[in-house]
């Protein structure tokens, strides 16, 4: 099992360009999450999904959109990149449910630089 994978690993964008980050998981997890990690800020939740076809806003959703058309994939889109979106982006997934709703499995991260 690959667990949680993220594509691409690195990307440099110019201000105003758009891109999509792909997260895939092979654990049949219901819940998926997108975080950004900035120095001194920890991980902050951008958007999340509690099932196929559902999405919800997290703590810092502005400037991002997401889609969960298939259970195993969670896409994060930047329509018009800004330098403030320079960050490391992490995807995570979890089965959810009453037993272990918070045991999240993380991807390796995508380092995005917007110039």
């Amino acid at each position, binding site marked *: 099992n690959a667990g*949680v994978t993220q594509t691409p690993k690195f990307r440099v964008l110019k201000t105003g360009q758009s891109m999509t980050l792909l997260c895939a998981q092979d654990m049949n997890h219901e819940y998926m999450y997108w975080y950004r990690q900035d120095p001194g800020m920890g991980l902050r939740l951008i958007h999340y999904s509690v099932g196929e076809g559902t999405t919800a806003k997290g703590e810092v959703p502005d400037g991002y959109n997401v889609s969960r058309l298939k259970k195993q994939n969670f896409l994060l889109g930047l329509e018009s990149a800004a330098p403030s979106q320079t960050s490391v982006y992490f995807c995570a997934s979890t089965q959810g449910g009453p037993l272990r709703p*918070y045991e999240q499995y993380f991807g390796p991260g995508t380092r995005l630089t917007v110039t």
Partner: protein
Amino acid sequence: AQRVTQPEKLLSVFKGAPVELKCNYSYSGSPELFWYVQYSRQRLQLLLRHISRESIKGFTADLNKGETSFHLKKPFAQEEDSAMYYCALGYNTDKLIFGTGTRLQVFP
């Protein structure tokens, strides 16, 4: 609103010394607390959860509701413990809020 505070950005100790990574939380409901760890060039992963009252890699953490704390402790640090440690609070049954993290450096 819920919040997790890790007051130390960096904690440096020598091998064999005790370690305590501090975590305080603010939450109006019944808290579920976790420690996640990220070793160099590895993914962020769950280290331990308060509800299990377990010891993982020699680390323990006790939830103190009176002090709203969930400090991570290890009596004798090892070099391989060097990593970034994040305290996290589970809320709304489906989300985690993370602290800003503490980098632990263990010197030989």
